[in-house]
C-alpha cells in the first residue's frame, strides 16, 4: 500500500476546467485517508475545498509548475502521485514531471492510470494505433503539423472536415472547416493551443448521435460502466456544451450494449487503472459508430455521472490507484460491493451555462470548442420533468417574439439559445418534424419537448425520492434526494430530526458567480455540523463539492427557485431553524424577498437590511446618515439630461450604460466635450435603463473588505486591489495585507466597516468595496453576503470567515469565540484568469463588467515573491525575466516608465516601446503596435486603447504571452520588480 500520495489540483477555474476538479481532488484526498494513506495536495487555486487543511494532510498553494512541484516532491518525498484528478492540468504536469526526470529522481510512482495510458489517450497517432489493434473503429483522420499538410489531408478526406488539437483543454481551438480557407484559419489558431503542435484533420460527422460512457477499471482488469449519457445535440457540439441526458434514452438494449462493450475494450486496450470517459459517434440507421475521444482521467462528465448515479467515481478511482480492487471497495450507500453498475430509476438532465450574457459582443454560437462556464443538473421521473426542472435552474432568459427566420437560424446553427428557441418554435406551433430536421436532434427528444410545451407537468403534491444507485433494490443509506411531482408518489425524505438549517447553494458556475460560492457553501455546512446543527443543502450544480452527498446531512438536488426551496422548507417542517441565503451568491440572495413573503425564516442578516444594502438609493441614505462618504452619483433617464447631470456630479465622471460592451461602453468623462463625444457614439441607442453617472475618483486605490459581524462586533479582512478603480473588483488582482495604505486609513476602513455592519444589522458576512483617494475613504458598494473573495481572504489571513459567519448566524458572539490572529507574517497575492483565449472575437481589456473565470494565489515572504507565484499560479507561461517586453503607454508619467524599465532591466529584460511611449535613452527599439510581433516576447504592457494597441493585447493572448493592460497592474509589477529576481521557494500554508 502506498503511504504518501501527491495529488495535483487543476489550478484556476478556466472554461473547460472548473469546479469538477475540486470535487474530484477532494474526493481523492478523502479516499486516500480512508485507505490509510497520507496526502500532499498542491493547487494554486485558493477557492477550493481541497486546499483546506481538513481535506489533505499537507497543502501547498503553489504554482502548478515543474519547478515548484519538484521542490514539493523533494521536501515531502511522496511514494506516488495521482495524475488523473486534476484535469488536463494535472495530467499534463505529471507527464512533464516524468519527462523532466523528476519522478524517477525522487522515486515517485504514478499511481493508477500511468504514463503510457495517458500518452495513448492523448496522442492521436498512438490512440489510433491502440484502437486499431483491438478492432475499434476510429475516424479516418491524420495528424498534421503544418497548414499545407492539413490542406492536403483535407483534400483526400473531402470537406467538410473537422480539426482538433492534441492535449487541448475543453477542445479549445477545434472546429469544422467547410473549405480550404476556413481550414487555414482553424489550423493556425488551433496550433496556438496545443502543447505538441499536432493538429488532427478528420472526416466530419455532423448529425451523428453522440454518446458517452463512464468506465472504471482496476489493476485486476475488473471493468464496469458507471453511467452512459446521451447528448441531445448531435455530433459537432463539444460534450461540455451539449445538453445531456442520463441514462441514454433512445438507444435500444443492443445499441447500448454494443457501445458499452466497445467502451470496455477501449479502456482495456489503453490500460486505464481508474476512471475513463469514452465518447462515441453513432449513425443510427446503419449502426456504424466511431470512438471519438477518451479522457483517461476524471472529467466534467465523470462528475456529472457521479452526481447522476450516486456512484462516487473519483473516490473509487483513487482507491484503485492506491491498490484496491473494485470487488474490495464498498459502495457506501448500499453496503454492497463497488463492483456493480448503478441502476437509475429517474432521468437526469444537464444544461450548460454559457457566458454569452456577459460577452454581448459574441454571437452565441457553440461548436467543437467548449464555451460554457458551468452547468446545471436536474432529476425527475420523466424526461419532461427533468427538463423543466433544468430549465428552471439554468437562470437564463427564454427567447420570445423572434421572427420566424431568426428562429430558424437559431435552430440550424448550434448556439446557446437553441433550446429556448426550440421551445418557442413549439409554442408557435411548428411541426416537430420540421424542428427535428433543422436541428438534427432525435425526434424522440423533440416529441418530449413538444409535450413539455403542451402540458403542464402534473401538479400533484409531489414527493422526494432517493438517489440510491440501485433503483430501490437494496436498502440504502444516503441523504441524497430529488423531488418529483409525477404520479403523486411516496415521500422518502422524512424530516431530519433535531435542529437543522437549509443552506442555499449558488447554482451553475458563471462569470461573476464562481466556485468561490461553493467554497463558502461547503464551509457553512461544515460549521453547522460542528455547532451541532444538521446541514441541508439545496443546489443544482453537479460539478461541486457542495453537491457531494457526503458533504451535508442532507442534499436536495433541486432548482434554486422559490417553489423548490419552499417545498424543501415545508418538507423539513419542525426543527428547521430557517434558511441561510448569504453563502449562495446573488442567486440565493435574490430568493430572500419571496421566501420572506411566504413566511419562511431567513437566518443571518435580516431581509429588510439585505434589501437596503442592495438598493443603491437606500444604501446611500443609510451611509449618509452614518456619516460615511460615498462618491457623488446621479442617474439619467434621458440623453438630454446627461450634460447637465454630469456637471452637477462634477468632473471627472464615470458613465456606465446598461448595455456595456466588453469595457468599451464605460468611459471616464473629464469634461463636457468628453460627454458630447460619448453622446455622439451612444445617443442613437435607446436608454432602456437609467444611466449611472458616478463621480470618478481619479487615481484612487480600491480596497476590498470581507467582514464577519454578529450585529455588535466585527472582524474585517482588508485587501488592497492592484488594478485601479473602473476595473470590476472581481477582475482585479489583490494583495493581503494591504501594501500601500497608511495605518490611519486602514483604521478608518475598519471603523467604517464596523459602522456599516451595525447600520445594516449584518449577522454573518458582508463585503464592502472602498476607494481611497488622497487618504480620503469612500464606500463604493456594500454586499450583505459572502463575496467571491471569501476563500482568498480566509486563506490569506488565516481567519475562517465563513465558519465564523455561521457561528454568528447561530447566535454566538464573536468576542466569545476563539479566533486566530490575522496572519501578517507573509504576503498573499491574488491573480485572475480570463477566458479571452476561448473567445477570439473579444477585446482582452478590462472594464466594469466582470470577465474573469478564476483566480490563483501566491504566498511569499515578500510582495515580489507572492506576486510572481500568483503570476505562475495563474498559468501564465513563465515569469518574463530575461525576455523581451513590449511597452505601449503613451500617456504614462515618464517617471513611472523609467522605474518600470529600470526594474525590467534588473531582471534581464530587453525592451521594445511603441512610438510616443517615453523612453529614457535612444538605444530602446521602437516598433509600432501595428507591426510588433509579440509572439516570442515575455510580456506586453499596453495601457492605450487604440485598435492597434488592443490588437497587440489580442495577439499576446493568442500566443499565450502575458499582458498588462491597467495602470494598477503596471504599478504592481514595478513594486514586484523592485525586489529583483525573487525567491520562489515554498511557503507552507499551515494554519
Amino acid at each position, binding site marked *: 500500500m502506498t503511504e504518501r500520495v501527491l495529488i495535483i489540483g487543476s489550478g484556476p477555474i478556466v472554461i473547460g476546467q472548473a469546479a469538477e476538479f475540486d470535487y474530484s481532488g477532494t474526493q481523492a484526498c478523502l479516499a486516500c485517508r480512508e485507505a490509510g494513506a497520507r496526502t500532499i495536495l498542491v493547487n494554486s487555486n485558493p477557492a477550493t475545498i481541497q486546499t483546506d487543511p481538513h481535506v489533505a494532510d499537507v497543502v501547498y498553494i503553489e504554482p502548478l509548475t515543474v519547478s515548484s512541484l519538484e521542490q514539493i516532491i523533494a521536501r515531502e518525498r511522496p511514494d506516488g502521485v495521482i495524475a488523473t484528478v486534476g484535469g488536463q492540468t494535472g495530467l499534463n504536469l505529471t507527464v512533464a514531471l516524468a519527462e523532466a526526470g523528476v519522478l524517477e529522481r525522487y522515486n515517485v510512482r504514478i499511481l493508477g492510470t500511468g504514463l503510457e495510458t495517458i500518452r495513448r489517450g492523448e496522442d492521436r497517432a498512438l490512440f489510433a494505433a491502440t484502437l486499431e489493434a483491438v478492432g475499434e473503429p476510429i475516424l479516418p483522420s491524420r495528424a498534421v503539423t503544418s497548414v499545407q499538410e492539413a490542406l492536403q489531408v483535407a483534400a483526400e478526406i473531402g470537406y467538410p472536415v473537422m480539426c482538433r488539437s492534441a492535449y487541448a483543454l475543453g477542445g479549445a481551438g477545434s472546429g469544422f472547416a467547410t473549405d480550404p480557407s476556413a481550414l487555414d484559419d482553424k489550423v493556425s489558431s488551433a496550433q496556438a493551443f496545443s502543447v505538441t503542435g499536432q493538429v488532427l484533420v478528420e472526416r466530419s460527422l455532423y448529425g451523428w448521435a453522440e454518446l458517452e460512457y463512464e468506465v472504471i477499471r482496476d489493476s485486476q482488469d475488473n471493468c464496469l460502466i458507471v453511467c452512459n449519457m446521451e447528448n441531445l445535440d448531435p455530433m459537432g457540439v463539444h460534450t461540455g456544451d451539449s445538453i445531456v441526458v442520463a441514462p441514454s*434514452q433512445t438507444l435500444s*438494449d*443492443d445499441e447500448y*450494449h454494443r457501445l458499452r462493450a466497445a467502451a470496455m475494450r477501449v479502456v482495456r486496450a489503453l490500460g486505464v487503472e481508474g476512471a475513463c470517459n469514452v465518447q462515441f459517434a453513432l449513425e443510427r440507421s446503419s449502426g456504424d459508430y466511431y470512438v471519438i475521444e477518451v479522457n483517461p482521467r476524471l472529467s466534467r462528465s465523470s462528475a456529472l455521472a457521479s452526481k447522476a448515479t450516486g456512484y462516487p467515481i473519483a473516490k473509487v478511482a483513487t482507491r484503485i490507484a492506491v491498490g484496491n480492487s473494485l470487488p474490495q471497495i464498498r459502495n457506501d450507500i448500499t453496503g454492497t460491493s463497488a463492483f456493480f453498475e448503478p*441502476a437509475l430509476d429517474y432521468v437526469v438532465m444537464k444544461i450548460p451555462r454559457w457566458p454569452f450574457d456577459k460577452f454581448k459582443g459574441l454571437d452565441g454560437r457553440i461548436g467543437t470548442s467548449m464555451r460554457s462556464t458551468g452547468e446545471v443538473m436536474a432529476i425527475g421521473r420523466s424526461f419532461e420533468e427533468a427538463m423543466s426542472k433544468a430549465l428552471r435552474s439554468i437562470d437564463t432568459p427564454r427567447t420570445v417574439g423572434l421572427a420566424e427566420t431568426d428562429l430558424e437560424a437559431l435552430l440550424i446553427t448550434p448556439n446557446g439559445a437553441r433550446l429556448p428557441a426550440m421551445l418557442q418554435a413549439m409554442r408557435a406551433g411548428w411541426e416537430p418534424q420540421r424542428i427535428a430536421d433543422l436541428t438534427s436532434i432525435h425526434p424522440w427528444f423533440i416529441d418530449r419537448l413538444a409535450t413539455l410545451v403542451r402540458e403542464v407537468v402534473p401538479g400533484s403534491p409531489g414527493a422526494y425520492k432517493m438517489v440510491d444507485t440501485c*433503483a*430501490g433494490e437494496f436498502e440504502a443509506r444516503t441523504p441524497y434526494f430529488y423531488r418529483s411531482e409525477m404520479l403523486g408518489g411516496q415521500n422518502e425524505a422524512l424530516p431530519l430530526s433535531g435542529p437543522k438549517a437549509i443552506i442555499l447553494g449558488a447554482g451553475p458556475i458563471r462569470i461573476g458567480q464562481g466556485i468561490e460560492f461553493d467554497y463558502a457553501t461547503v464551509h457553512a455546512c461544515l460549521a453547522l455540523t460542528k455547532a451541532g446543527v444538521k446541514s441541508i443543502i439545496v443546489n443544482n450544480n453537479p460539478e461541486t463539492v457542495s453537491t457531494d452527498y457526503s458533504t451535508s446531512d442532507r442534499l436536495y438536488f433541486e432548482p434554486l427557485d422559490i417553489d423548490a426551496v419552499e417545498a424543501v422548507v415545508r418538507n423539513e417542517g419542525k426543527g428547521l431553524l430557517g434558511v441561510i441565503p448569504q453563502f449562495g451568491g446573488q442567486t440565493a440572495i435574490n430568493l430572500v424577498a419571496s421566501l420572506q413573503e411566504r413566511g419562511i425564516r431567513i437566518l443571518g442578516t435580516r431581509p429588510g437590511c439585505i434589501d437596503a444594502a442592495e438598493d443603491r438609493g437606500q444604501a446611500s441614505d443609510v451611509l449618509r446618515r452614518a456619516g460615511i462618504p460615498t462618491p457623488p452619483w446621479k442617474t439619467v433617464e434621458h440623453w438630454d439630461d446627461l450634460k447637465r447631470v454630469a456637471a452637477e456630479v462634477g468632473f471627472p465622471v464615470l458613465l456606465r450604460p446598461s448595455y456595456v460592451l466588453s469595457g468599451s461602453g464605460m468611459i471616464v468623462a473629464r469634461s463636457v466635450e468628453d460627454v458630447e463625444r460619448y453622446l455622439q457614439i451612444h445617443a442613437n441607442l435607446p436608454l432602456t435603463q437609467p444611466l449611472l453617472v458616478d463621480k470618478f475618483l481619479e487615481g484612487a486605490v480600491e480596497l476590498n473588505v470581507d467582514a464577519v459581524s454578529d450585529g455588535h462586533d466585527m472582524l474585517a479582512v482588508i485587501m488592497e486591489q492592484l488594478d485601479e478603480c473602473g476595473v470590476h473588483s472581481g477582475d482585479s488582482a489583490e494583495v493581503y495585507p494591504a501594501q500601500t495604505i497608511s495605518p490611519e486609513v486602514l483604521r478608518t476602513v475598519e471603523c467604517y466597516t464596523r459602522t456599516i455592519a451595525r447600520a445594516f444589522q449584518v449577522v454573518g458576512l458582508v463585503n464592502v468595496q472602498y476607494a481611497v483617494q488622497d487618504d480620503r475613504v469612500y464606500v463604493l458598494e456594500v454586499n450583505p453576503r459572502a463575496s467571491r473573495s471569501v476563500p482568498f481572504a480566509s486563506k490569506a489571513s488565516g481567519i475562517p470567515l465563513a465558519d465564523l459567519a455561521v457561528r454568528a448566524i447561530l447566535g454566538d458572539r464573536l468576542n466569545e469565540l476563539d479566533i486566530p490572529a490575522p496572519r501578517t507574517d507573509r504576503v498573499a497575492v491574488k491573480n485572475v484568469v480570463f477566458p479571452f483565449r476561448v473567445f477570439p472575437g473579444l477585446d482582452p481589456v478590462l472594464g466594469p463588467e466582470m470577465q474573469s473565470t478564476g483566480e490563483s494565489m501566491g504566498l511569499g515572504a515578500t510582495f515580489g515573491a507572492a506576486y510572481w507565484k500568483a503570476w505562475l499560479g495563474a498559468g501564465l507561461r513563465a515569469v518574463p525575466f530575461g525576455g523581451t517586453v513590449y511597452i505601449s503607454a503613451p500617456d504614462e508619467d515618464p517617471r513611472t516608465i523609467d522605474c518600470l524599465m529600470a526594474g525590467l532591466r534588473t531582471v534581464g529584460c530587453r525592451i521594445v516601446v511603441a512610438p510616443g511611449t517615453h523612453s529614457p535613452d535612444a538605444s530602446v527599439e521602437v516598433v509600432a503596435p501595428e507591426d510588433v510581433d509579440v509572439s516570442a516576447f515575455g510580456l506586453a504592457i499596453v495601457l492605450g486603447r487604440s485598435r492597434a494597441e488592443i490588437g497587440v493585447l489580442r495577439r499576446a493572448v493568442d500566443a499565450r504571452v502575458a499582458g498588462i493592460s491597467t495602470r494598477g497592474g503596471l504599478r504592481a509589477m514595478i513594486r514586484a520588480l523592485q525586489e529583483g529576481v525573487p525567491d520562489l521557494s515554498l511557503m507552507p500554508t499551515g494554519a
Partner: protein
Amino acid sequence: MVAIAQAEGAVDTPMKASSSRPLAATLMLTDGTCFYGRGAGVTGLASGELVFTTAMTGYQEALTDPSYRGQLLMFTYPLIGNYGVSAGRAQSDSLQASGVIVATLSDAGSDQRSLGSYLARHGVPTMHGVDTRAIALWTRRHGAMPGVMSIHQEEHAPSLAILRMMLDACSYDTRDFVAESTVARPEVHGAGSRRVALLDCGNKRSVIDELVRRDTQVIVLPAHTSAADIMALHPAGVVVSNGPGNPECAMHVVETIRELYGTVPLFGICLGHQLLALAAGATTYKLKFGHRGANHPVQDTATGHAFVTTQNHGYAVDADSLPADLLVSHRNLNDDTVEGLRHRTLPIRSVQFHPEGAPGPKDADVLLDEWLGIAA
C-alpha cells in the same frame, strides 16, 4: 398468472393509450396494499408473482423472455417504450409476463413501433402512471409476493373482494411452468460443425443465437424429451435452458438430467443451472425477491475476476447442499449466492446468470466458448 384478458376492440387494431376514455388500473398486494394508476393494453384482470427488474433498456427482450411467465413484471426505470419495438428483439413468439407495470409508457413516435400498441396487440394488461419506486420498495421489504392487477374503465372498477379472491388463488411457486413454456416439437437451428442439444425449459432465442454464432448446430428439444432420445442425436453437449418457475416443479426434467449426468457435457443456464444442481443432489431455495436486472456483479471464485451480468431468477442453489464434486465457480458479490457451478472432473458447467445478455451485457459469454471448447 391467470390472465383473464379482454382485448379492447379487435386484437390486431393498435390502441392508443390516450383514447377518449382513459383506462384505470388497480394493483393489490398480499397485505392489502393497493396502488392505483392508469391502464393500457387491454381491460381485464391479471395475477402473478410481482417482480421488478432494474434493467434500464431491453424491455422488449424482458417481456418476451419465458422466464417472466406467470409474473407481473415491473420496470423500475420510469420511461419504458422510448425506442419502440422491433421483431428482431423478441426472445420468444409471445409476450410472457401476465401483466406489466411501468411508471410512464413512453411513446416511440409511430403506432406500429410503439410499445403501447404492442402490448395491446398481445393482450397484456398494463398499468402505468403509478409510483413504481414505491412498489419496488414494497417488494424489497416484503419479498416477491403474488399481486393482482385490474385494468378497467374508470366506472367499472372491480370490487376489492374480487381482487382479494384472485390474489388468494395465486400460487406461483407450485406450478410447473416448464411444461407450458417448452417447444411442442424439436427445432433445428444453424448448421455449425458441432451439434448441441438444448433442452427447452422456456428458452430465450438469444441463447440459440449465441450458440449458432459459435459454429454450432442447435437442436431445441421439448423439456420432456427422454435422455435416450437426446443421446440418440449424438450431441457434443446438452444445454439446459433458462425458464420460469420453481425448479422443484420440474422434477421430470431433473430426472432426465440425472440420466445424462456424467455421460455427456452439460451446460445449465439460470433455471437450467438450478435443475442441474437438483439432479446432482443439491437443493434450491427461494430468494426474498430474486435478482432481476442487467447490473448484477458476479465473481469467479478461482481467479477473483468480477464481471457484470444479466439476471432473472427468484430461486437459488444452496451452496451447503452441493455434492463434493460440484464446485461453486461463481458467486454474487452483492449477497454471496451461488452464481455458477463447475464439476471437479466432468465437462459440466452451469451459471445462474445469462451469459447471452439480451437484455444486458455479455461480459461472461466467454463461458460459452470455454464449455463448447471442452464439450467438442
